[in-house]
């Protein structure tokens, strides 16, 4: 085999390695303790947060129309209840049921003091 194949072979090996690494997700955070909302993914939740919540609570969670969430020390059950039912001017049902674990995981991690 000519050495012209080397870039293809090495490149293929690197691509396969990347793919394997992406399957393993070695640094994915473990789900926070939270009963009903276990299995939430902080990083997926972040996208949902930026889309649905940041307008009122600030991109970094430092507050706006809504109160600051960063450092507020909220637990999963509280966040889930508020997201489901809304509170005051905050509307209910901003996220789908499938997104609930992720948004809760993100808000809990954001609000960790």
């Amino acid at each position: 085999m000519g050495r012209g194949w080397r870039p293809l072979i090495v490149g293929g090996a690197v691509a396969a390695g990347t793919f394997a690494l992406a399957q393993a997700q070695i640094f994915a955070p473990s789900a926070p303790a939270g009963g009903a909302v276990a299995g939430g993914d902080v990083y997926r939740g972040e996208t949902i947060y930026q889309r649905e919540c940041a307008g009122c609570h600030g991109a970094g969670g430092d507050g706006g129309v809504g109160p600051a969430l960063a450092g507020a020390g909220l637990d999963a059950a509280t966040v889930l209840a508020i997201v489901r039912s809304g509170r005051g001017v905050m509307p209910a049902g901003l996220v789908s049921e499938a997104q609930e674990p992720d948004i809760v995981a993100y808000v809990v991690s954001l609000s960790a003091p």
Partner: protein
Amino acid sequence: MLLGDVSETYTDLVTTVFSSTIAAKAWLASAALVLAGVQVTTAARIYGRLTFLPERGPAIARVHRWSGRLAFLLTLPVFFHCVTILGFQTPDARVAVHSLVGSFFYGVFVAKVLVVRDHSLPGWALPTAGLALASMLGVLWLTSSLWYFTTVRFGF
């Protein structure tokens, strides 16, 4: 858990500059894309195209090398987050295309770097590899940063 700490440390580090880790990824990838534009432009000049640019020579080669190195470094935090935290996902077409192209990105990158050094290859090999790499970065940017800036938010 130790592995959990790594992603937490990464998040803390990134959010000292950006409002969130996704915002950071979107901007780092955008910077890398701009540098990829510099890569393609300087490469075209080295190949005798775009003659309005300064003469080919050591200066343009240096710009080509350093823009490439910098672009590569800028992609590393994005690689860390996308590959080791989020992983391969296919919930919708955008994410599926992004995951698939992203899996091949560093493979094509390594192949391109090897092609540069291999003078026994035919002349079309290098421009092909280079353009493939730049196009892949373009697709990755369109399916992530652009999506983020247009549908989520545009800000740091």
